[in-house]
């Protein structure tokens, strides 16, 4: 059973004379099938947190344990989807998707099978030979997702993966990511600054504050699971959805106002 434990994580760094507490005492845990969304204002250390989980940064305190193993470097057990610009323009769709398997020296026959299976799943199999720079933003992000999935990672780490897309494509991709999540049963850790996106996708939701980046509030949600039959707009305009959205927006706004008052005094 996959599990992720984040234990008392802190990240402090200095620029000149000022000390910045990017993260302070962050703790949470995830089990197989969880879709954890972290939402918060810009500068709240969401990306720093994801970079630590991915193994790109070493925290100044605390630890991350994935399936019983301490994380201190990047690895194929964690698939990372970036906001943009992380596909390799010199490779076509198939070659991008296959990259991880090729690096890990998986036999060619198995590579083709797996890659095509996942390209089918995201509806891109007919674009296998297309250069990635000829794809739309939404399609590029699907390639980025497949590229991680073929590695069969324990967890998907997604850093604002839909942030660069237009509103309509963004909603289509939200349903799409849910579908992939339900079909593969992967743990997903999803970072966004869109409250609406966060509530719609999350099975667990964490609201973070900025400087120091702390966990302010946690929710257990199930809008995604109840999605059966209902359209995305119907879910997002339901009274329950709106009341939670306003509650979280209120929390974030009051933090902003506190910060402004702090500056004024």
């Amino acid at each position: 059973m996959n599990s992720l434990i984040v234990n008392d994580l802190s990240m402090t760094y200095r620029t000149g004379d000022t000390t910045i507490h990017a993260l302070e005492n962050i703790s949470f845990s995830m089990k197989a099938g969880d879709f954890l969304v972290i939402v918060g204002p810009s500068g709240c250390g969401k990306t720093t947190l994801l970079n630590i989980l991915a193994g790109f940064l070493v925290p100044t305190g605390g630890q991350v344990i994935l399936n019983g193993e301490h994380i201190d470097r990047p690895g194929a057990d964690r698939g990372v989807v970036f906001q943009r610009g992380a596909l390799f323009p010199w490779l076509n769709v198939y070659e991008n998707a296959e990259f991880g398997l090729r690096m890990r020296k998986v036999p060619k026959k198995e590579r083709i099978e797996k890659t095509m299976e996942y390209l089918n799943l995201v509806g891109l199999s007919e674009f296998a030979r297309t250069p990635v720079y000829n794809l739309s933003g939404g399609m590029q992000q699907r390639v980025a997702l497949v590229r991680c999935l073929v590695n069969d990672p324990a967890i998907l780490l997604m850093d604002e993966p839909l942030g660069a897309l237009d509103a309509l494509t963004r909603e289509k991709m939200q349903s799409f990511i849910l579908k992939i999540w339900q079909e593969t049963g992967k743990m997903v850790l999803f970072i966004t600054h869109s409250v609406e996106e966060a509530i719609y996708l999350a099975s667990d939701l964490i609201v973070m504050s900025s400087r120091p980046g702390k966990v302010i509030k946690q929710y257990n949600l199930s809008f995604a699971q109840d999605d059966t039959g209902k359209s995305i707009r119907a879910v997002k305009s339901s009274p329950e959805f709106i009341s939670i959205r306003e509650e979280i927006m209120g929390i974030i706004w009051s933090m902003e106002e506190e910060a402004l008052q702090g500056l004024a005094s």
Partner: protein
Amino acid sequence: MILTVKKHLKGFFRIRKKNATRPKKTIKFGDPTTIGKGRVYSILSIITLLTLWFFVSEIKLVPPLFLPSPLKVLGKFIEISTEGYRGHTLAGHVFISMYRILAGFFLGCLAGIPVGISMGLSRIVRGAMDPIIELYRPVPPLAFIPLIIVWMGIGDQGKVFLLFLAVFSIMVINARSGVRSVTIEKIHAAYSLGANRWQVLYHVILVNALPEIFTGMRVAMGVAWGTLVAAEMVAATSGIGWMVLNSARFLRTDIVIMGIIVMGIIGYMFDLLIRSIEKKVIPWKGKT
């Protein structure tokens, strides 16, 4: 027959169909996409230049010693192509120069690209190599000639070495900046997909540096032709650059002009060649 010619002309001049369905733009001035290549004007300007040259020299507006007629230059071209100039035909001189350029270019790339890449990757290599390259790079190649004669004599090695120096620094600088142009997302993505550091170097950093390396090769090839004339001043007895310098000593301006035109055309051909290779090897240039 006529049809195929027409087809080629269409490709060359981009003759527009009358009922083209392109959207009509109201603003053309300042919009770079409306300009096109203007190949008709290229041909017109070359014809005008040749005609002007022809008449200026025919009516002896300028003494033939300064500006021989294009026909005389063409005659020299045929004469030297068949009978040769001081021991070699034109093709022979071109071949010798080409050998020197390609040898210098090849060695310069062979050494410059790995050095540039290592400078992009390692603080130690960058620190150690940077002052050496930055100190010799601004010095014009001519300044090295006396030293090169003393060191390497008057054989081909000296000339190749001078060309090597010119190519080397350009390739180092371009390879280094190519390596450093990679985005951190691509590096992070490769590592978290399971690549080790050698795989990241080969499959991400090096491929990503190719466009800038190719740009360096184009620039270096141009500079190599420029340096060739200087290189062939190193006590040469052959080569197209030497032919021009030697004939100038005897005031044979017809040969000088012929040599310059030949060098120009060959240099242009090389540029086209590298550009077409570039198109094939890195179609993704400029895309992210």
